[in-house]
């Protein structure tokens, strides 16, 4: 196990001063269609970072490049001081894709076990961690249910738990709160805030602009570019708006102009 929950800065090849997640002129084209357009991004360690923007604004593509599932067409991306796709510290990142991407023909517990084993966790700590996460996603009673028998929201929660089983340094969550009821969503955000307090970096994409207010830093994306970035409060002040949704609309108009 590489991740000890300690400071990421101890690891070779990673300066704490540099962001945990960095993009320089990052570009991704699909058959001539530009999905990510010379994106510059720097997310510091211990940040709860929200990426907001409409469908097709490049959020998911950016994350897929960061976790090594897509090759950039141009530019550079670094995670934990390593060029993507990262190899050395791959066990220090966690990823929850937008699609369910868990084994529906296995039980909740078996899914968690599989991911734990892939991160070479020892049975003892893995079982402890499983308990912790099952409580967090409120699925303790359903641990022996096949995932295929769960509701959509529950499946999403299993998927979230799987991405966190190994307590990663950097967590990429692509729309983690879709289909999660409001009460539980509050619990999730509390958990993300706790992670941040422990020095973890959490990058979340979301459609729900209201919940992005809870992020330390929000990056607004449009057409593969970052059109605005800052603390939620600042963003609202800069646009003289009272919520992030209006702020986003204002930045979009300015960008289009």
């Amino acid at each position, binding site marked *: 196990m590489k991740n000890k929950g300690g400071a990421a800065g101890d690891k070779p090849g990673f300066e704490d001063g540099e962001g945990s997640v960095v993009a320089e002129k990052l570009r991704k084209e699909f058959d001539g269609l530009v999905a990510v357009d010379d994106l510059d991004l720097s997310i510091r360690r211990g940040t709860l970072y929200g990426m907001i923007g409409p469908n097709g604004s490049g959020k998911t593509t950016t994350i897929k490049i960061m976790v090594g*599932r897509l090759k950039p067409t141009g530019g550079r991306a670094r995670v934990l001081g390593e060029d993507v796709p990262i190899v050395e510290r791959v*066990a220090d990142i966690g990823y929850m894709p937008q699609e369910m991407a868990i084994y*529906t023909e*296995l039980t909740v517990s078996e899914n968690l076990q599989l991911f734990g084993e892939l991160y*070479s966790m020892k049975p003892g700590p893995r079982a402890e961690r499983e308990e912790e996460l099952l409580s967090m996603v409120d699925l303790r009673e359903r641990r022996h249910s096949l995932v295929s028998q769960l509701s959509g929201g529950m499946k999403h929660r299993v998927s979230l738990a799987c991405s966190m089983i190994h307590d990663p340094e950097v967590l990429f969550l692509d729309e983690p709160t879709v289909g999660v009821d409001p009460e539980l969503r509050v619990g999730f955000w509390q958990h993300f805030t706790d992670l941040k307090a422990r020095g973890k970096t959490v990058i979340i994409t979301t459609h729900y602009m209201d919940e992005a207010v809870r992020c330390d830093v929000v990056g607004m994306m449009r057409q593969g570019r970052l059109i605005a970035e800052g603390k939620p409060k600042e963003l609202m002040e800069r646009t003289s708006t009272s919520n992030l949704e209006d702020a986003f609309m204002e930045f979009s108009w300015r960008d289009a102009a």
Partner: protein
Amino acid sequence: MKATRVLAVARKTLRSLKHDKRTVGFLVFMPLFMIAIFGYTFGGSLEDVSVYVVNLDPGVGNASASEAIVAELAASGVLRVEQVIGPEGDPARSVEQALAEVEAGNAWAAIVFEENFTADVLRSVADAGSVPTGVPGAITIHLDASNPNIAQAIMNEVQLTVQGVIVSEYHLLPPMTVSEVRVYGEDAEFIDFFAPGVMGLAAMMVTFMLSIISFVHERSTGTLDRLLTTPVTEGEIVAGYALALGLVGLIQSIVILVTAVALFQVQIEGSPMLVLLIIFVLGAGNQGLGFLLSSNAKNEFQAVQFMPMILFPSILLAGVFWPIEAVPDLLRPVSYFVPLTYAVEGCRSVMIRGWGLGDVWFQLAVLATFAVVMLLLSTYSLKKRR
């Protein structure tokens, strides 16, 4: 490559099968069903084939060669003599009557003994060893040969009976004899020949099918992509699957072996472990093949379309039911490219001939090469996906 991660992938693959009760049933009962059906169908011999006899031969004195032959035919069990027509009545009408039954599909053959049959036989017997003074006794068989197996059986039965009667009634020994000494396959029956084939076929079918469908599923649901963001490597995923599906093939082979021995007394002269090793390697290779083809299928439905493409050449050309010597020259080179050929050959040699590892090393080496190449190509194709 880390063993714990390979095992994690293998365990998850087996577990997901285990939760699907119907699939478990399919995996166990499909081979059982296959061997039972094939065993009972091919294991039995032909019986009660309907024939009509037209005996135009009145005999000579009290002797009648035709009657002796007809009596033997009726007693054999292979043929069922529905009716003996003649020798009274108009010969042409009698033949017509019997032919009508064959044409109507009520009988497979009309066996006609010509009018002077016994007289011709007696003269030929008297002529034995000197210059013939006439024609030999003649039997004409009007056959419905639309089923070649039945046609063949009727011809064999009549010929064997005729030979028997010549020896028993006329005490004429043939001047030459051919005798058989079995080097391998003493007491071997047809089922002993094809049980190893069915075993290989079942293992290959199922590993290929499970592999191609699992991977199409993994790709379409995004789990494969997700796995690859963890420390698990492409090679470990492929190895984990090969291990799991190889085991599935193995379990099936055990089911088939046990059934074949219990129901049909199939012989296993050599080591059962060697047979299972051959099947495991075959299964691992087919897992790789299924994986490779899965990248060309967009969904499960398209995946299933690959099955006949792979299965038919294997069933027909790999020597499962008939030897590859029976495959036409044009297609025979293809047989040597079908991995199942080597598995069937290997299992057969171990089970019937009792050969050991030293004798089937070539077949095992071919299968191992197939497996290694398939698994490496699978790994490579996964790496390319990034």
